[in-house]
């Protein structure tokens, strides 16, 4: 297999384990510093006894040794406690009990002292050790719980599979006290794993079962591998460094690692479902848009066609029986509907072109010419509307005049449609700094604030009872953007009525 390809599929994140104190049980064997410590205690006790033996009676010296035994047992455990007890007895006997400087025991009662020392040392060492053991276990449990809780927090924040995997590796590392890694492929030969570990990882992928490095038959592997399964497939395999066999909490830690694997698996599944849901939502939106386009096509192409065909067949077949006014009206209806159809087809073509991202053919254009053309077209379409253009001298711009004209015509069309007849539409233009702004203002009722934000959305219609496709403004917006500019709506413009649509276009430097 191509190891480069593997490397891409395999993400391994290794972090060093934090230092943790070695575990100490009540019966832990003594180590050198502890022995030295116990000897220091005894020396202090002997010195104290020596210094005070003139002013205090004998039992106070015994008491100092007693304290030394107690401290050694508490501090260093059972075995050192016992050894200290024997040494203390011997030292005390040697230094302070007659006959001095011999180990001979003169009084049988002194043996009782030895027995007391041993009892105190043994019991104290045992209890202190147990206490320490429990404290360690509690600390370890707390550490595990802390990891689990931190992991749960990380998972809740993870919004992609990689984040889940990173959290899994980090927390498995903390739990295992050794490196951990995530493998995605059955042949993880791009990692720095040794041969036995590679084989174990491969088995975990193939057999879908955990491979515990501590179990026999693992041929000295250093890693334990846990597969994460979803729908009978291995999603990934977590490898973590074999737990220290000396640690009494290794089973709890192994269990905790399994728990975080399970949680990670659930999180990955949740992300997968979320992604699927997101995809379904996107598809539904796309479908909705397509359905809206189809409905619009079917309605807005058919209605003019139905009128044209119906009127023409009426003229041809009933021509003789139609009064002249009716004939004129039918002819006018045909003209109007053909015009409407042409405009709709223009819009559709422009939209298709914009959506397809076809390159524009920008040429030098006089904005006044384009405005004049749009106004002339609007005059033909709406003979009753009062459309005025009040223009200063304007610089030339780089644009495609057909697109700009369509955009202006759509704005005028909209303005007329939503005005109370006779519509009064005003077109103004202003060149300022690097921007040319063309504004179409009407005196209609204005746009409701909640609709204002949506008017450029395809197929959105603020008032569905007006005829229209909900595409006009979308196309204007698209055209303005394609020409490097912007389209904004302002409503109301005066005393609660009127709408102004501003097309802003960049002015080329040469012309500015």
């Amino acid at each position: 297999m191509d190891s480069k390809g593997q490397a891409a599929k395999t993400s391994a994140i290794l972090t060093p384990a934090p230092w943790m104190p070695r575990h100490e049980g009540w019966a832990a064997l003594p180590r050198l510093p502890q022995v030295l410590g116990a000897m220091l205690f005894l020396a202090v006790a002997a010195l104290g006894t020596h210094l005070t033996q003139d002013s205090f009676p004998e039992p106070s010296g015994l008491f100092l040794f007693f304290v030394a035994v107690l401290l050694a047992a508490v501090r260093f455990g059972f075995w050192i406690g016992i050894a200290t007890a024997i040494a203390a007895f011997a030292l005390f006997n040697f230094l302070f009990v007659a006959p001095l400087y011999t180990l001979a025991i003169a009084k049988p009662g002194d043996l009782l002292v030895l027995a007391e020392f041993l009892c105190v040392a043994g019991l104290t060492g045992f209890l202190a050790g147990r206490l320490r053991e429990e404290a360690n276990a509690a600390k370890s449990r707390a550490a595990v719980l802390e990891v689990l809780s931190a992991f749960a927090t990380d998972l809740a924040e993870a919004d992609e599979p990689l984040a889940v995997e990173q959290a899994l590796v980090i927390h498995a590392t903390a739990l295992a006290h050794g490196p951990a890694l995530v493998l995605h492929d059955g042949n993880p030969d791009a990692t720095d794993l040794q041969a036995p570990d590679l084989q174990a990882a491969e088995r975990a992928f193939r057999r879908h079962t955990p491979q515990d490095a501590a179990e026999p038959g693992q041929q000295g592997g250093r890693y334990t591998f846990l597969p994460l399964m979803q729908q009978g497939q291995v999603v990934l395999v977590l490898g973590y460094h074999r737990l220290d066999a000396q640690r009494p909490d290794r089973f709890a830690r192994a269990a905790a690692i399994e728990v975080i694997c399970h949680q990670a698996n659930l999180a990955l599944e949740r992300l997968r479902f979320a992604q699927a849901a997101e995809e379904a939502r996107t598809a539904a939106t796309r479908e909705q848009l397509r359905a809206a386009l189809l409905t619009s096509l079917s309605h807005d192409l058919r209605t003019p066609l139905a009128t044209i065909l119906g009127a023409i067949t009426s003229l041809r077949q009933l021509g003789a029986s139609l009064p002249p006014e009716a004939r004129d009206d039918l002819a006018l209806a045909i003209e109007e509907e053909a015009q409407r159809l042409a405009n709709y087809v223009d819009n559709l073509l422009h939209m298709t072109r914009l959506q397809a991202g076809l390159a524009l053919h920008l040429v030098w254009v006089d904005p006044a010419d384009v405005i004049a053309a749009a106004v002339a077209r609007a005059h033909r379409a709406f003979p009753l509307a009062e459309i005025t253009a009040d223009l200063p001298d304007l610089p030339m711009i780089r644009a495609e005049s057909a697109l700009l004209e369509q955009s202006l015509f759509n704005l005028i069309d909209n303005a007329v449609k939503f005005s109370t007849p006779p519509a009064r539409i005003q077109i103004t233009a202003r060149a300022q700094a690097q921007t040319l702004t063309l504004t179409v203002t009407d005196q209609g009722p204005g746009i409701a604030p909640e609709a204002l934000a949506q008017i450029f959305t395809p197929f959105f219609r603020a008032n569905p009872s007006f005829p229209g496709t909900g595409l006009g403004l979308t196309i204007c917006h698209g055209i303005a953007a394609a020409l490097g500019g912007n389209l904004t709506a302002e409503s109301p413009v005066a005393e609660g009525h009127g709408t102004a649509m501003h097309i802003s276009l960049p002015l080329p430097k040469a012309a500015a």
Partner: protein
Amino acid sequence: MTKPLILIVDDEPQIQRFLGHALAASGYDTCFAATGQGALEAVAAQKPDAMILDLGLPDLNGKAVIETLRAKSNLPIIVLSAHDQEMEKIMALDLGANDFVAKPFGIGELLARLRACLRKAPQPEDILRQGPLVIDLPGHTVTRDGAPVHLTPTEFDLLVMLARNPGRVLSHRQILLQIWGPAHGEDVPYLRVFIGQLRQKIESNPSAPDLIRTEPGIGYRWMAD
């Protein structure tokens, strides 16, 4: 003689406009409604003789209008619908619409449908004639150019049902329910076989039938002259 009053229900003013002129020139009076609710009110107030109903209305669905009307009247209804709204057409017919015209349409087609719908229900005649075809109902015999045509009883019933509704579309379901009964409402392939046999026996050119016309996906129409 008063002119028949036609109610035109369409939300498109341009459609209303040309239909108004065309129907007026064809000898009808017209009234208009732009909504389903308006249509129901106009039917109650003006008592039209027939209704032309666009299925895509802004408020009530056209089918709801038909359903409401059919509960109390036999007013002839012609629905206007788009070509691809086949289900809509079928449902409208099954709900009791008399016929349909697909948009866009020539005025001649609509006027022909209108005439067929307004034709007074034929008196129960004993003899039905269509071109060279003569159907003798009491005698249960059919002749074509004087020569006897041998039909099975089911073929005969089918022929009579079609011929009694000249110019009007009959949906698959309507035919199946009447000739074969309620259990066979969906057996369209079955019906197709019988129509094929019938055409073999009565049409002069069965592959280009001019008596029984197929309305694809909808049903069959008996072509009156």
